[in-house]
């Protein structure tokens, strides 16, 4: 079959949605209004742990403007990932500060709030399980005493008590490695806090109930999850829920779950009117579904020549009161903390732990950001112990072609090694910023990272129109990442020989597009892109066959370019695509194509991984980041002097857009490294309830990131592409922590590196992180006993 001009696919295509966003015309979910629309408010618990004795809505129901009140009895189902442990409303028991007790719809938001406050709730306080150490202590109170009776949605994870889920990796014999007399044993402990997404558009929904079906217009990354989970919670067939998605004002993983949609749906059915529910910034701060706080203990047996003979680690991830995304994210440790380096033998345990705190969720490069921080700091501690240059150690040990990953998958291609060389050239190309440090302490670090594309099922349909344009229908969502307005139209246009501006991209609509796993894990360009490419190939075949009859030429001799079907090598020959489509209308009917994609399932080594949702990674993505810092010895303030990124992108479809993702992702990562943190008070309430106390990066905090896109690494993505938006946030905390450790000579074990914490390190007053609730014998930390296969 003829091929299109490959020069078309890589281009700095501008976003088509930028103009309306700049004009203030874009209507996000928060801007949607419908006739007769009601406003909803949620009554939330103001204690973290209690038994509900009584809920009385008599007075609230009589308040002005009130149209409907929803309670636990309106949503009989339970939801979750892996385990259905989460009711929509607190049912009998309160498990976190901020938990939903009731929802009210009224004519105005103020009326809805007043009525919610008028609901009388009688509670009997229960003890709080505040921290993971509390939760794992012998005889700890169970957050879910009934955990054994919950519906299991995925098999394989070990569970027990306050351990919601455990995933474990055992490959080779670490005991033998640690017992060798030619190794140095290095042990490190790390702790990180929660990070809030602070999407500028809060979670928001407008729901209606029409013709026996729910229509949910929502600010989400996962329209199909919202459809299926809303139906499950409400106890109705999924086909009765219709989800559409307007432009989304930021997600970063926060909107990778169904959250507030079912409340609005129930209220819409009960009131018979459309219902709008928008979370306030305070609700967004206190119940965000944050990147989880975590604790990591890792030890390695390393030879003097720098081989890692054995590695053991335990990662505790706080899932809060309900398992949610953290159940799934236990999987990631194998591929993030277990990534980067060749390991002779390895044992990893990754545990999601219940506490009476607000549930956590997904956040860009979930789990990977803090595990990469831990792994890279640990690596530098190893280098210090054996007296090896950190760059030399990395060059020796990074994963290369044919190397085994933690779960025994075989990696393909040398990628990290050549990327380290590219970073060396980038460093040589620009002078060190050390002179800018002045009298401050100067430090620098180059770190590596392993992430992966979370592939999974997607589908696409393309209508080739009689005017020569194409309409692409998928359940992909535009959050700001650009995929829907840049990569996808570029891919389709390339295959069809038309301009990307002639590819119309339909907004996500579960009644129009087939199933999709959602926007996250860097998968949109890859999975939705691959499905779109397959659909375009289907359309292309059809139009070539139609044209071949008209032109009396074999389809193999035809090409699609510049909106025409041409005979190869004869510019201007043949006919326009529009004309060929018009002909098809008379001959065979309109031209439609479809395509689907799912993960191919790269194999792990049998028996290595237990409790994982993904045993091996289909598309690895690698990072090399370099950072220079200056640390003020008087205040502990850390300034970023320079930041450099070499990122594995497979193939850059839109280099300028990728640069935008890298600058933005690195900045979010620097915020987490330096000043973003939620802490939790004794009452189980998050202490930072507003943007006054939760400090995100501002314009004066940022530096321009120097970027080198590394192309050519193996990828099963469309045209060799990989997702590029997720991974930039993976390494900044690692890079900053290692650079600060180098600058100060202090052992950096925690993030964020706020001035008081750094000053504490410099003065020797910062307490060491010891994690005594993680046992020294790795086996004492796990419920499961995987059967190792020695290699």
């Amino acid at each position, binding site marked *: 079959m003829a091929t299109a001009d490959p020069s078309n696919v890589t281009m700095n295509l*501008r976003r088509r949605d930028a103009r309306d966003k*700049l004009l203030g015309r874009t209507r996000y979910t928060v801007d949607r209004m419908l006739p007769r629309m009601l406003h909803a408010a949620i009554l939330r618990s103001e204690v973290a742990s209690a038994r509900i004795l009584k809920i009385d809505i008599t007075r609230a129901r009589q308040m002005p403007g009130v149209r409907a009140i929803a309670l636990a009895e309106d949503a009989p189902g339970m939801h979750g990932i892996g385990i259905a442990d989460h009711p929509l409303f607190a049912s009998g028991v309160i498990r976190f500060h901020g938990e939903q007790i009731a929802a009210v719809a009224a004519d105005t938001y103020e009326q809805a709030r007043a009525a919610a406050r008028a609901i009388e709730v009688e509670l009997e306080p229960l003890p709080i399980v505040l921290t993971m150490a509390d939760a794992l202590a012998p005889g700890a109170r169970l957050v879910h005493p009934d955990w054994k009776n919950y519906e299991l949605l995925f098999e394989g994870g070990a569970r027990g008590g306050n351990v919601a889920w455990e995933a474990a990796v055992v490959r080779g014999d670490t005991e033998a490695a640690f017992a060798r007399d030619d190794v140095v044993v290095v042990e490190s402990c790390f702790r990180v806090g929660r990070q809030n997404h602070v999407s*500028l558009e809060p979670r928001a929904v407008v729901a209606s109930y029409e013709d026996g079906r729910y229509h949910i217009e929502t600010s989400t990354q996962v329209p199909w999850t919202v459809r299926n989970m809303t139906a499950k919670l409400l106890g109705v067939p999924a086909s009765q829920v219709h989800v559409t998605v307007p432009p989304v004002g930021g997600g970063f993983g926060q909107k990778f779950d169904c959250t507030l949609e079912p409340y609005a749906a129930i209220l819409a059915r009960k009131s018979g009117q459309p219902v709008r529910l928008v979370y306030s*910034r305070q609700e967004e701060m206190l119940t965000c579904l944050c990147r989880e706080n975590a604790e990591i203990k890792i030890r390695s047996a390393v030879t003097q020549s720098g081989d890692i003979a054995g590695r053991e680690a335990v990662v505790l991830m706080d899932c809060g009161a309900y398992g949610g995304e953290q159940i799934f994210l236990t999987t990631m440790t194998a591929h993030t903390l277990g990534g980067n380096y060749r390991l002779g033998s390895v044992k990893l345990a990754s545990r999601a732990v219940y506490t009476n705190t607000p549930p956590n969720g997904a956040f860009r490069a979930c789990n990977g950001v803090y595990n990469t921080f831990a792994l890279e700091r640990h690596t530098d501690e190893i280098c210090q112990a054996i007296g090896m240059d950190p760059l030399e150690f990395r060059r020796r040990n990074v994963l290369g072609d044919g190397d085994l990953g933690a779960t025994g998958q075989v990696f393909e291609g040398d990628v990290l090694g050549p990327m380290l060389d590219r970073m060396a050239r980038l460093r040589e190309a620009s002078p060190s910023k050390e002179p800018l440090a002045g009298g401050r302490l100067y430090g620098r670090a180059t770190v590596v990272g392993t992430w992966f594309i979370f592939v999974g099922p997607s589908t696409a349909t393309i209508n080739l129109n009689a005017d020569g344009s194409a309409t692409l229908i998928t359940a992909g969502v535009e959050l700001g990442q650009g995929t829907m307005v840049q990569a996808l139209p570029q891919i389709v246009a390339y295959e069809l020989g038309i301009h990307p501006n002639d590819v119309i991209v339909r907004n996500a609509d579960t009644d129009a597009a087939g199933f999709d796993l959602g926007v996250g894990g860097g998968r949109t360009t890859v999975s939705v892109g691959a499905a779109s490419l397959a659909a375009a190939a289907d359309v292309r075949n059809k139009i070539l066959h139609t044209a071949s009859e008209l032109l009396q030429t074999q389809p193999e001799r035809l090409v699609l370019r510049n909106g025409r079907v041409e005979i190869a090598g004869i510019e201007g020959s043949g006919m326009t695509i529009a004309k060929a489509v018009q002909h098809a209308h008379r001959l065979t009917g309109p031209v439609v194509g479809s395509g689907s994609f799912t993960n191919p399932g790269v194999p792990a080594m049998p028996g290595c991984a237990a409790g994982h949702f993904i045993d091996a990674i289909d598309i690895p993505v690698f990072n090399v980041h370099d950072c220079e810092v200056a640390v003020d010895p008087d205040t502990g303030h850390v300034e970023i002097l320079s930041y450099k990124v070499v990122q594995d992108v497979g193939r850059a479809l839109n280099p300028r857009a990728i640069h*935008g993702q890298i600058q933005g992702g690195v900045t*979010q990562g620097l915020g987490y490294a330096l000043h973003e943190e939620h802490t939790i008070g004794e009452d189980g309430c998050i202490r930072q309830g*507003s943007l006054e106390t939760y400090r995100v990066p*501002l*314009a004066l905090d940022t530096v321009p990131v120097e970027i080198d896109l590394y192309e050519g690494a193996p990828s099963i993505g469309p045209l060799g592409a990989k997702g590029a938006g997720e991974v930039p946030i993976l390494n900044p905390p690692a890079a900053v922590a290692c650079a600060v450790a180098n600058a100060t000579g202090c052992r950096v074990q925690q993030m964020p590196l706020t001035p008081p914490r750094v000053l504490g390190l410099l003065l020797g007053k910062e307490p060491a992180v010891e994690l005594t609730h993680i046992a020294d014998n790795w086996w004492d930390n796990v419920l499961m006993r995987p059967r190792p296969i020695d290699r």
Partner: protein
Amino acid sequence: MSLRLVVNGEDRVSRAEPLTPLVDVLKDEFHLTGAKVACREGFCGACTVHLDGQPVVSCLVPLGMAEGREVYTVESLATAGELSPLQRIMEEHDVVQCGMCFPGILMVLTSFFQEHPRAERDEIKAALVGNICRCTGYERLVDAAVALAKRS
């Protein structure tokens, strides 16, 4: 109860309570949804409008304070469908991502450039210190603003 104000050059009457935040009047009564409500606390800057020529966060301005005064919103920046030079350069440099913060950033920079048309990079960044952008990491939109300052 009714209050008069001038919005984007037109006389308007609001029937909202005088303590209603100006941004809610713009959105709910006048259907001008450009100014974005992202925090209601004055910290994010996404709801910035011009009040008698000065940039203000409209979530913290009660309607009563705007009585008889001139309000300009992001919807006023383009004239007859033509983007302003600032809007145009942001589009050309392709710096927008989710876009929620841009109405506020444009209003702040439009006002800033009126007084400092040849501002330096550091001055532009300092002018943006009241605007949170969670997507872009600022630098590329600052590049675009610097390019505009160099043209004048």
